[in-house]
């Protein structure tokens, strides 16, 4: 069996050497197609991460018109933390509130002359887990919060949360649609390129069949060839993407200026790169398999 596998592999390599042009065309097509997909993925992943950073701003604030004692703070903090979806709870005392107020009015501090911290409310700022930042989740969290005795005034910027989530959903929908069309186009182009390259070698299939080769014997080297082409194409695409990224994309901070924490684009995570390599290999293999079915008749 090992001998046969070795034979098929050496046949596949010989076939690649003997059909350099069609192999270059196929690998080139797979490379370009996957480069487009990986560029799209790079942008999409960075947009998602930017959106994730932005969603940190989804925050619920509970106001109190008096300074809470330590015991009251702890009791309320425990009750709030017990609600599902809470990632962080922090108490903002009057002094801290005044400090923040002043820092927001930097340059116009005179406006706050004579204002004492007693006029400001104290508050609990509650950050929510990522999975609980959807509009409906925030609303249900707020109504659960209001059921805690002692909590009366809650603010969470309803309109902002609603708009932000609408924007996120819209972005995901467009991304999903674009990604879907892109993948469909890539599969169509690559499978047709492979079909044409196999069509150009139909004589080989015919001769093999004439001399008594089984369909498996005929297909195996072609499938290995497809696998090699796909892996080569996706590897080159990843290398080119990395080159593009290192060349200028990682500095493209301005691209995501709406993201306050972004200092540039980050490269694709390892699992995405693995996925791209696997997708390339599968594209070559399955493209060859489906094309061969059409041309191999006993």
């Amino acid at each position, binding site marked *: 069996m090992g001998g046969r596998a070795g*034979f098929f592999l050496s046949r596949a390599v010989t076939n690649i050497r003997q059909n350099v042009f069609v192999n270059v065309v196929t690998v080139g097509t797979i490379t370009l197609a996957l480069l487009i997909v990986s560029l799209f993925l790079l942008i999409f992943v960075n947009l998602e991460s930017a959106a994730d950073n932005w969603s940190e701003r989804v925050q619920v604030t509970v106001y109190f018109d008096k300074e809470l004692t330590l015991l009251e703070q702890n009791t309320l903090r425990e009750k709030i933390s017990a609600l599902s979806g809470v990632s962080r709870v922090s108490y903002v005392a009057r002094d801290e509130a005044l400090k923040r107020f002043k820092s927001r009015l930097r340059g116009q501090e005179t406006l706050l002359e004579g204002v004492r911290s007693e006029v400001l409310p104290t508050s609990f700022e509650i950050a929510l887990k990522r999975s609980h930042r959807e509009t409906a989740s925030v609303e249900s969290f707020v109504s659960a919060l209001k059921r805690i005795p002692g909590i009366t005034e809650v603010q969470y910027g309803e309109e902002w949360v609603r708009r932000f989530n609408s924007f996120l959903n819209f972005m995901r929908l467009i991304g999903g649609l674009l990604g879907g069309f892109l993948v469909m186009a890539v599969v169509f182009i690559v499978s047709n390129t492979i079909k044409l390259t196999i069509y150009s070698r139909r004589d080989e299939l015919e001769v093999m069949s004439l001399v008594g080769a089984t369909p498996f014997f005929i297909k195996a080297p072609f499938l290995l060839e497809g696998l090699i082409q796909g892996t080569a194409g996706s590897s080159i695409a990843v290398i080119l993407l990395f080159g593009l990224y290192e060349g200028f994309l990682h500095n493209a901070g301005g691209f995501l200026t709406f993201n306050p924490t972004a200092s540039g684009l980050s490269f694709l995570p390892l699992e995405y790169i693995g996925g791209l390599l696997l997708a390339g290999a599968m594209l070559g293999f399955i493209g060859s398999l489906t094309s061969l079915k059409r041309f191999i008749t*006993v």
Partner: protein
Amino acid sequence: MIQLHNVSLAYQQDASALNNINLNIGKGEFVFLTGPSGAGKTTLLRLLYGALTPSRGQVLIDGQNVTRMTPAQIPLLRRSVGVVFQDFKLLHNRTVFENVAITLEVLGWGRTDIGKKTMHILKQMGIESKYNLTTQRLSGGEQQRVALARALVNDPKILLADEPTGNLDDANKNQILNIFKEANIRGTTVIVATHDRRLIDQSHKRLITLVKGEIVEQVEKETTDNDQTF
């Protein structure tokens, strides 16, 4: 070796390519199949290597019923049937050696044995010095000899040839005919479809004439002095 019983084949509902063919070709026979274009010669040959299945009737090769073979059995049949064509059907991006060795690779032969056997058959065909050339660089006669080497390298029981000399000049025709005769002497049953009258006349072999898908004439082998001379 080859038996056809009431074989008919229709490509389309109205046009019959073969009509009620009954034929018996013995082991080691040499048969010419002739007739005008469209008479059904190629169709008949294609039935014999399992490329077509008859609409009606039975085709038996070496005791095996081809019409009842599963797709997995067809490759096994083809390993005992060599086929050559007018257009040679060679792989032009491969060398002469590789074109011939393919038959033995399919049979799972080892590399050393493939090398020896392939060079042996190329020597028989008189083209051993061209083993490393791609087939595009050969003349028509040389290309047909490569195709014959590919068909004969595994000593098949049957050799089928479809207009094998159609593209060749007279000198090459004679060479190819001699190769057929030598294979026949070694025990291979040879069937040559041709409408080359000169080839048929100088061979004195059994002749079957097809017209419009029917056998209209069968002439048994004539033994002449000429027959012994190659």
